């Protein structure tokens, strides 16, 4: 698969939120306001590129080499958790403006299954290092795109009159289904 196809596949066809169902808790949790959605999207792009490449390197050069493949789950979650902590400390010291912008969303990323999911997918699909890097970045871009589109729609729903049992999460899920339907049209493109 060429890089162009890989990029289109990661952003649209296999969109991490709407086609693979990873990272739905922050998707529903942080999409009530446009600002938080943009913050979360940026934080995910930043962490996912780092996590995706670092876990690939650790898997290929440490776990496979020493026959410790069965420790993959534990190793990856530890890497992601400590990476998030490290990124948080680094940003706080060196780029306070960015740190303030990302705010609460950085620590939340540890339990974002989109991050862990992409790391595992990179390994399962047997990507090379460069493919893993490209895939991580564009999966995250797809995440941010879907999240921001969804936040725009949810701000509109606040103004609409919704029947009581459908309010809040229920109507949000149905709306997500509609966006997913739109993304479903990309199926078969690659």
């Amino acid at each position: 698969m060429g890089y162009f196809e890989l990029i289109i596949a990661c952003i649209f066809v296999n969109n991490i939120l709407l086609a693979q169902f990873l990272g739905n808790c922050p998707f529903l949790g942080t999409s009530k306001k446009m600002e938080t959605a943009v913050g979360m999207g940026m934080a995910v792009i930043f962490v996912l590129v780092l996590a995706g490449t670092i876990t690939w390197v650790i898997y290929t050069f440490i776990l496979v080499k020493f026959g410790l493949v069965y420790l993959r789950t534990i190793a990856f979650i530890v890497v992601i958790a400590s990476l998030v902590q490290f990124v948080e400390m680094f940003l706080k010291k060196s780029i306070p403006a960015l740190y303030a912008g990302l705010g609460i969303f950085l620590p939340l990323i540890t339990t974002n299954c989109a991050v862990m999911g992409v790391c595992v997918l990179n390994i399962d699909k047997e990507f090379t290092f460069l493919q893993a890097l490209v895939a991580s970045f564009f999966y995250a871009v797809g995440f941010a795109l879907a999240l921001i589109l969804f936040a725009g729609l949810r701000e509109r729903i606040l103004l609409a009159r919704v029947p009581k049992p459908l309010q809040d999460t229920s109507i949000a899920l149905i709306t997500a289904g509609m966006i997913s339907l739109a993304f479903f049209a990309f199926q078969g493109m690659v």
Partner: protein
Amino acid sequence: MPKTLVQEFTKGLWEELPPFRLVLGLCPVLGVTTSMENGLGMGIATTFVLFGSNFLVSLLRSIIPQKVRIACFIIIIASFVTIVELLMQAYTYPLYLKLGVFIPLIVVNCIVLGRAEAFAYKNKVLYSMADGLGIGIGYTLALGALGAVRELLGNGSVTVWGDLSYNLSSAFPSFQPFSFMVQAPGAFICLGLMLCFINAIGD
């Protein structure tokens, strides 16, 4: 008011039924429920992890320091997930392949971490075990129900482990399978409607 063991167990089945009452752990709910069998398998795997991690966290709650508790919880959970992964590879390999990436992702399922933090770290071992089992079974039932609805409407029949099956077209001969339901968009819409239904009868 302190609850009894039975109450801690049964609250997971309705009062705090995971994906509906506590809107947590949605990714597997949407991702694996293309059939009832997958939903139940995922639910049982999650229940095992939830039960084990609640037990161990509660047992070690006086040793785990407050400041690094989240890291400790994650390591405990990850160990149980690895056990489940290896067990499923050994005994239910076809199911393991179908669930795919969602098995290692039990580590980051908010329900498991949420119960460790909100319940097991503060309560006695037996109560934590009852809580973990109750929430796990509630989660399994919810996944199974969503999987059954989607499989029934999407394929026209429900099959669980090869034998127990029900065919909708025997009752309604003119029924046409609605394959939209087993694909991605159907997951969101079906879960949204079920949530609406539960809200409506809950009030």
